């Protein structure tokens, strides 16, 4: 009892996960009892083990998806951050870009997938473009906000120290907007993974999105669950990496939560 009182939070969470998995197992094996519909978590685990260590068929899918994701994500950073800065410095650029950004940002991205496919073909180009379209706006918008809300006092201090324009940018504006850019990168991570999944629905022959899509079409539920799980793990891994980067990039911030 003492142990429970001390660690009630961790115990409750562990109990929740455990009972959920047990419930899932019984639901799958006793009540549903149809492997074309739902399989036990044990079966998913077994399938995952098989695909990873026996046949190794999971690796090409992971590599294909990671490649597309990384290209799209990095491209978004390279384009989004400078464009966001430009919009922060020039109201004219911001005003002209505004209607198009709103349109592109609020439209369900999947709508652009067939158009991009039409323009760029079924190769890697269209897939990277779909990921890019998902990632670029959170990064762009956060870079813009980051640059806009930099504390005026810092800038005034820099001016009174007679720092040049370039020095103000490098020493004050850029570091101050880093937390915002990182927040944008976090948002973009989830959207990018969704983008990968969407992109690989269209004319792909490899990748986790393709795996999930194909498993769905052939009613292969264990593989479907393995694909979904790997997507989840990739997301968690990405968030952890970003958190590490955040600690390294903004050492002056004392607390790092979430």
């Amino acid at each position, binding site marked *: 009892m003492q142990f429970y009182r001390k660690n009630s939070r961790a115990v409750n969470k562990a109990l929740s996960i455990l009972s959920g998995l047990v419930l899932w197992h019984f639901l799958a094996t006793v009540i549903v009892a149809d492997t074309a519909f739902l399989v036990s978590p044990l079966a998913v685990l077994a399938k995952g083990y098989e695909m990873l260590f026996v046949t190794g068929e999971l690796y090409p899918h992971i590599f294909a998806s990671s490649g597309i994701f990384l290209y799209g994500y990095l491209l978004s950073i390279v384009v989004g951050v400078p464009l966001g800065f430009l919009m922060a410095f020039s109201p004219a650029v911001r005003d002209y870009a505004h209607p198009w950004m709103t349109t592109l940002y609020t439209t*369900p991205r999947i709508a652009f997938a067939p*158009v991009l496919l039409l323009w760029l073909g079924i190769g890697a180009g269209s897939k990277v473009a779909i990921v890019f379209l998902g990632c670029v706006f959170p990064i762009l918008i956060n870079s813009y906000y980051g640059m806009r809300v930099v504390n005026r006092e810092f800038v005034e201090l820099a001016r009174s120290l007679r720092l040049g324009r370039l020095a103000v940018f490098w020493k004050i504006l850029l570091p101050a907007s880093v937390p915002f850019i990182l927040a944008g990168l976090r948002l973009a991570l989830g959207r990018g993974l969704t983008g990968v*999944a969407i992109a690989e*629905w269209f004319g792909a022959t490899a990748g986790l999105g393709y795996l999930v899509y194909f498993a769905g079409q052939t009613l292969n539920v264990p593989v479907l*669950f393995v694909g*979904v799980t790997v997507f989840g793990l990739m997301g968690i891994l990405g968030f952890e990496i970003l958190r590490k980067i955040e600690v390294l990039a903004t050492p002056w911030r004392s607390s790092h939560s979430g």
Partner: protein
Amino acid sequence: MRKDVARGIVSVVAVLVVWEILARVFLENDLLMPAPSGVARSFWKLTVSGELNRHFAATLLEFAYGFSTACVIGIPLGYLMGMHKWLEEWMDPWIATLYSIPIITFVPLIIIWFGIGMLSKVVVVFKITIVELILNTAAGVKTIDPLWLEVSQSLRLTRWQTTYKIRLPAALPFIVTGMRLGVGRALLGVIAAELLASNAGLGYLLRDASETWDSPKLFVTVLLLALMGIVSFTLIKKGEQKLAPWRQTAEW
């Protein structure tokens, strides 16, 4: 007229004109890049024939069913989660799991479970919206100013009165934020589900247009989806500003 609005209009008109010229004079390829005038013509044709109306109504209905059910179940659930720590601890691992996996990957599974009809799309919308609502409602209930609760205690408000007069109004802006996030993601989800397997809806139209190489129709669908996104986003943003004018709402 405000300067930024004028610039926005100039920008939109300029791009449309350049696009029209580009498509008519240089590209002359309706498949790759139909001119805006061609898209408008196709839009008119699809509207008159009632085809657009049918698909638009299907998507809207699926969206409305899923969204309203998620509100009815998700807001009380999020409220309870914010009030009771043990419930939060029990639900958190599963909510977090659902939240961290890209929604799109669930769509094939949901179609296996609920069929290719309307129900599976309603479930997709429901699933996406309820996660956002639960998380945001719980956050709203938890971050309430303790001073307000003290005031309600000294006024001897009953539990129900505290709930209706203090806690729920305090959580309302958070709930609307959850709705805004839910709308955007649910729209994506419903289109994806329709695209994968259905016989009606804008997602179906998207697939139909791209498989029959009917580019003007494809662009009409994209345009309509853009419109849907902008309108829903603007409406909820307005609601957010009205409910919580002290909070800075996102420009995008």
